[in-house]
């Protein structure tokens, strides 16, 4: 499984600070950080530790089996964000 960030994310970076595997992006200072409308969790890296859920001040993070219906798109969106990133990295390399 993985955790997923919904559209109510306010880009408070508390989740990034507590993530033990650095799977939440973009990070402050990254070129796409300021333009990002929210943060995303990389489903291929997330270890389901729950730390980000505790840290989020607006409860915007859910386990994939418990995403509210109004955020049902979030899982695909988080995955798409990283799919595009890795394409960009492959193209750049």
């Amino acid at each position, binding site marked *: 499984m993985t955790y997923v960030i919904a559209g109510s994310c306010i*880009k408070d970076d508390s989740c990034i600070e507590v993530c033990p595997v650095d799977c939440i992006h973009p990070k402050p200072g990254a070129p796409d950080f300021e333009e990002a*409308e929210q943060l995303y969790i990389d489903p291929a890296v997330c270890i389901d530790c729950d730390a980000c859920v505790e840290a989020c001040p607006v409860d915007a993070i859910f386990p994939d089996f418990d995403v509210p219906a109004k955020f049902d*798109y979030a899982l695909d*969106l988080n995955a798409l964000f990283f799919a595009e990133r890795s394409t960009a990295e492959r193209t750049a390399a």
Partner: protein
Amino acid sequence: MAEPRPRVAIVGAGPAGAFAAAGLLRAAGDVEVDLLERLPTPWGLLRGGVAPDHQEIKRLEDTFDRQTLARGCRFLGHVDVGVDITHLDVMRHYTAVIYATGAQTDKALGIPGEDLPRSWAATEFVAWYNGHPDYRALDFDLSARRAVVIGNGNVAADVTRVLMLSPTELERTDVADHALEALRESRIEEVVVLGRRGPAQAAFTSAELRDLGRMDGVELRVDRSEVELDPISTEWLAEEGTFTARCNVDLLREFAARPPNPGARRRIRLGFLRSPVAIRGSDRVEAVEIQRNEIARRDDGTLRARAAVDEDTETIECGLVLRSVGYRAVPLPDVPFDERYFVLPNEAGRVLDADGEMLPGVYTVGWIKRGPTGILGTNKRDAEETVTALVDDLRSGALPPPKRPGREALDALLAERKPDHVTVEGWRAIDAHERASAEHRPRVKLTSRDELLARAHSDG
């Protein structure tokens, strides 16, 4: 005798001020922080801006409370710095001040008819439905069938949703009672949302755009012709477009492909590459006249929307216009102001005087520091920068103690100038009352200063 603890005043208890207070308590530890606020209630746009159907975001107030007021930071509400006490009063009583007053006015369209009755700044509508005490008396006439929202940002999306939500949905939120009553009687069936630029450059977040397309009983109509990208936008999207911009274009194409829904209760129409050139009407808004735009590249490579030649203007009949094309900070008495960028001139949060010299002890954070950009969390990083500067200055000895140190001196001044100011206990009384009044709602807001002050100063 031990050195007195440094005292810092933060003017404006909105998100930027709250993040600064929290950061200061974390970084400096042994410092007294007072949050001075013009309204009797804290948290600024979290209470008065964030849309009532986005309650999850308002949970941030618990974090603000826990990291500021619950850690000894004082709340001094209903105190207008610049009016009740001056900048010089603040400097006499505090080691340092951080201005966090935000961007309080909206940009005008600068077109004929803008001042007609029923043409408003979207922010006035927002303040009204969110129960801001200074806006509760505004009289929004919602008797027309069609409203036009000008702008493509977050506020434009918010006001559109609020106009389209059903009374049943609104009843579950903390929308102000006077607004709930008026929206219940609303006859508005269609909101037309117009963007100056194209679908690829729309300022909506994809979350907001998606929300517009998922409202119960509301048809979102986007004509196929609206989502055909011009060659410049196609190239821009592929090479420089953000993840959000690509998501938005995909969403808009999906919306455009939807079959019509004649059974819908209400309808939202999105139009792009359109600017209003005039608002028409004899004694109130009757129509908006619209011009077509096209996307062009500036010499520096950035994109802009310019009026398309050889295109006739079109007219959209409507009885309400809400404009949302940006905000502006207002100058503060006795504090330098950059009239070009509408911010306090500053370097990493240290306010500068007319000669570009550091003004000792004066700092800034949030929209009045950087301009009206970013989202809630942006203020956290912004506050960290300002707090770092302030703490460095404290430690280097650059900030001498104030002439009248100690909170007793400030409290004596407030007792004289603003005896009915609201403390944290007063705010807690307001908060408890509003939450207790709500059965199936998050809270029922008190919306007049008199009510708020009466509750703050009551004993139970």
